[in-house]
């Protein structure tokens, strides 16, 4: 290029130009242009498959997540999880490089298995792929059989694996593939005819809030229902600081996972995130297998509790009824601060569904709903939720749009609050709209991954956070005359 182009002088952008563009990107004209783009994705609200796969792997007892592919990918997933949870994420890669791309990754995999087994002594290794082996067509199944036959790992050592190409779907799909792989690996042939272990298999789905996992367990405990939480990361990513580092601080016991086909029932708490896993359960067991909307908001939590009640023949315990009453009391106390207020929300389909439900229950409007990757089925479902309520009128669902689209939308058609991950903070600043951090990832606030947002208690937490943020905004922006003691 240096030969082809005449050398030009350095020109700095003038303040006038900056001012002009600053204004222009907030206009209807710009919004239209922005929404019309077809190729570039800017500030997406979704990650790639292997991240979900790694989250699953961390959720099983003594399990080492094992990335078959480039070490850089593994470093990225580990950092992403560590930054959100502020906890260690113990995972390895078999560090494929150029020669792996040419000759295939079997040598790397075999060496990696041998080393990881000796170094980190996992009870199980859950292997998932990053882009490179997917493109060159590595055959994980054959590689693992070869590893066993070569004595690199014992014949009966558990190595579930999942293909998680990053160029297909999102972290949610990776979550599903790995979960199905782990559970089917452990539980296949462990079904005993006529056996009912009395437990509930509960599948939270891609959920990066350790508080939610604890809340699921607490709710089941209140019911007296023994629960087998599948891919339980509550200890893994919320382990105590007591002077001892543990590589595997938590996770679903492998025995419990292996017994999951003998459960009394199976419930997935995300409608759109664990399809393959649910399909597998349905094909393998006659016990009830059901999918519920995430229990965010009163109605969704009611449905969850009634389902538990129905499946296990137990009354909803008085303690939870009282919790419901307290939540409704709090919602009624706070409704005037949220009524008809408009919100923009972004994230995974099931998170969005839950937030839509909660906001509509408060008489608030989920005004811009941004789903950065989803299919027609998801769109139809979310639209139906909006259509069910008068407060959903005029609200807009934006499928396969990103946070740069959202910026344009709130600039031209503003809302009162933003609800979503840290990545929305630039929009909040530019548009001067308060931002309530919920979802994944939360990189700039502490402890929010420990505050549950499911169930009655979790909904109370959302309410507290949203309503007080709106009140804070009233105080922050009010004139002296209206700066009052009581709100």
């Amino acid at each position, binding site marked *: *290029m*240096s030969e082809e*182009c005449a050398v030009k*002088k*350095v020109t*700095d952008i003038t303040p006038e130009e*900056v001012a002009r*563009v*600053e204004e222009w*990107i907030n206009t209807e004209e*710009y919004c239209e*242009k922005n929404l019309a*783009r077809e*190729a*570039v*994705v*800017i*500030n*997406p609200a979704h*990650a*790639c498959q292997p991240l979900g796969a790694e989250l699953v792997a961390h959720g099983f007892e003594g399990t080492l997540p094992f990335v078959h592919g*480039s*070490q850089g*990918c593994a*470093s*990225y*997933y580990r*950092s*992403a999880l*560590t930054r959100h949870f502020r906890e*260690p*994420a*113990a995972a390895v*890669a078999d*560090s494929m*490089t*150029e020669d792996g*791309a040419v000759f295939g990754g079997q040598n790397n995999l075999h*060496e*990696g*298995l*041998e*080393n990881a087994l*000796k*170094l*980190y002594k996992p009870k199980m290794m859950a292997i998932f792929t990053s*882009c*490179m082996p997917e493109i*060159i067509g590595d055959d994980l199944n054959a590689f693992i059989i070869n590893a066993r036959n070569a004595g690199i790992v014992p014949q009966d050592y558990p190595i579930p694996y999942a293909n998680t*190409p990053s*160029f297909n779907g*999102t972290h949610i799909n990776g979550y599903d593939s790995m979960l199905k792989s782990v559970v089917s690996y452990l539980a296949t042939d462990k079904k005993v005819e006529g056996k009912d272990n009395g437990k509930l298999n509960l599948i939270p789905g891609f959920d990066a809030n350790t508080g939610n996992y604890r809340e699921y367990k607490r709710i089941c405990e209140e019911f007296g229902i023994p629960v087998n939480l599948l891919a339980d990361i509550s200890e893994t990513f919320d382990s105590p600081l*007591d*002077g*001892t*580092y543990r590589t595997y601080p938590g996770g679903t016991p492998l025995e419990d996972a292996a017994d999951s086909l003998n459960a009394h029932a199976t419930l997935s708490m995300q409608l759109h995130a664990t399809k393959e896993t649910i399909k597998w359960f349905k094909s393998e067991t006659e016990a009830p297998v059901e999918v519920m909307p995430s229990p965010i908001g009163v109605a969704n939590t009611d449905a969850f509790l009634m389902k538990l009640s129905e499946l296990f023949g137990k009354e909803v315990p008085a303690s939870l009824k009282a919790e419901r009453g307290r939540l409704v009391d709090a919602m009624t106390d706070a409704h005037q601060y949220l009524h008809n207020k408009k919100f923009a929300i972004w994230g995974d389909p099931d998170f969005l569904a839950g937030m839509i439900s909660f906001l509509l229950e408060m008489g608030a409007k989920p005004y811009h709903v941004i789903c950065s990757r989803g299919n027609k089925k998801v769109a139809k479902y979310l639209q139906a939720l909006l259509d069910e309520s008068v407060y959903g009128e005029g609200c807009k669902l934006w499928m396969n749009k990103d946070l*740069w689209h959202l*910026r344009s939308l709130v600039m031209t058609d503003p809302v009162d609050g933003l609800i979503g991950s840290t990545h929305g903070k*630039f929009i909040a600043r530019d548009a001067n709209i308060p931002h309530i951090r919920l979802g994944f990832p939360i*990189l700039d606030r502490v402890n929010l991954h420990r505050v549950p947002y499911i169930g009655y208690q979790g909904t109370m937490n959302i309410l507290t956070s949203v309503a007080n943020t709106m009140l804070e905004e009233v105080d922050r922006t009010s004139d002296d005359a209206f700066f009052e003691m009581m709100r």
Partner: protein
Amino acid sequence: MENENSAVKAPIEGIEKKATEELIEKTLELYPEKARKKREPHMSANDPGVEGCTVKSNRKTVPGVMSARGCAYAGAKGVVWGPIRDMAHISHGPVGCGYYSWGTRRNLVDGHQGVDVFSAMQFTSDFQEKDVVYGGDKKLAKICEEVKELFPLAKGISVLSECPVGLIGDDINAVAKKSSKDLDLPVIPCNCEGFRGVSQSLGHHISNDSIRDYVIGTREFADEPTDYDIALIGDYNIGGDAWASKKILDELGLNVKAIWTGDGQIEHIAATHQVKLNLIHCYRSMNYMAKVMEEKWGIPWMEFNFFGPTKIAASLRAIAARFDQKIQDNAEKIIAKYTPKMQAIVDEYRPRLEGKRAMLFVGGLRPRHTIGAYEDLGLEIVGTGYEFAHNDDYDRTYEEMAKGTLIFDDASEIELETWAKEMKVDLVGSGVKEKYVFQKAGIPFRQMHSWDYSGPYHGYEGFPIFARDIDMAINSPTWGLVKAPF
């Protein structure tokens, strides 16, 4: 700078070569035989007085270990290209690489995101299966058009290819060439697929190649050149580092015409061939470029170190020695002005930090460059190592470290754990993935890639912040709560 320390460091009490060698032996026992053989050459007890120690580096990571390393893409996007503020950097390929590297390396920029700066944004082609099957070239051309239309003040576009792009054989170079012409905008391809090489380091190199081939020499500064024109090379403005460094250089009387690449501006970078001297901070990521500019444009270059008052003063004198008496006098004035201020910091913190032991494991510069700053505060560095250094980095490290201290390359997490425990360190300085491993074990930690969301640490502005942060890490009362009384 490095030769000024050629005197062998004073020994650290309780650190002996033999004991360190025994510790290395013990650590290697953790591995299976083949991996043990691979890891063995990468760690050594320092013996600078004799023949230096020999640590092998820039080799493939052993499969199946928890390595801290990233990939070529990480080096290109996260380190070299990403901080250039006035360009759109396209992560070309699937969504993940761009998503995970989004805003996580704290190269601060000045300006309005989406208007005249774009560093804190994530541009991706978000490859889907069809892009892998049919190729992503057409999509890339379209992306460039859309970027130009939506971001008219963008001064250029970089295209950073992720693994699939290279594997399916897309020709981003051809697309970039055509788009550049069609859009009358620099569109610069960087073939930095993550599978290339063994670490981030190759990504730096590939990026430098692309800057050499497509950028440098394509612009000239508008104002008249002076004898004091310099470029600041290898400062990525983590937590404002480059701004802190620039302040000192300004005060010295030098004109910092371009910064590579923290808060960087592509046209200024393109005109760097006009400066009189390149000052290089991060030697690992940018030495190659300094050499290229020396060969092609005859620009001399020198290393310098702005961590801690001792090194700053030595660096200022060495830099000033390249210029006239006026600059040399300025250097002495600056040192005289700041020495009492820095001494006050040392007086405040040193009593609480004297004799504390630290172990470092960072990227390609800080494991040696920050040692002086720790020592100014009275800490002792008992072990140091790099994620992605080369031989010349180790050559520069041996003399910074006391005899018998541990020097290591591409350490795995289990090695670091073992060493921190056995050497009874009071502080570990490393990356985010390592941070909580040590904190769970009750060992204070500072994240030294990102300054743990603090900074700057460079220059006179940085040292008080560094001192406060190290004191805060080690002496936080929270550590006293780790063991329950029951």
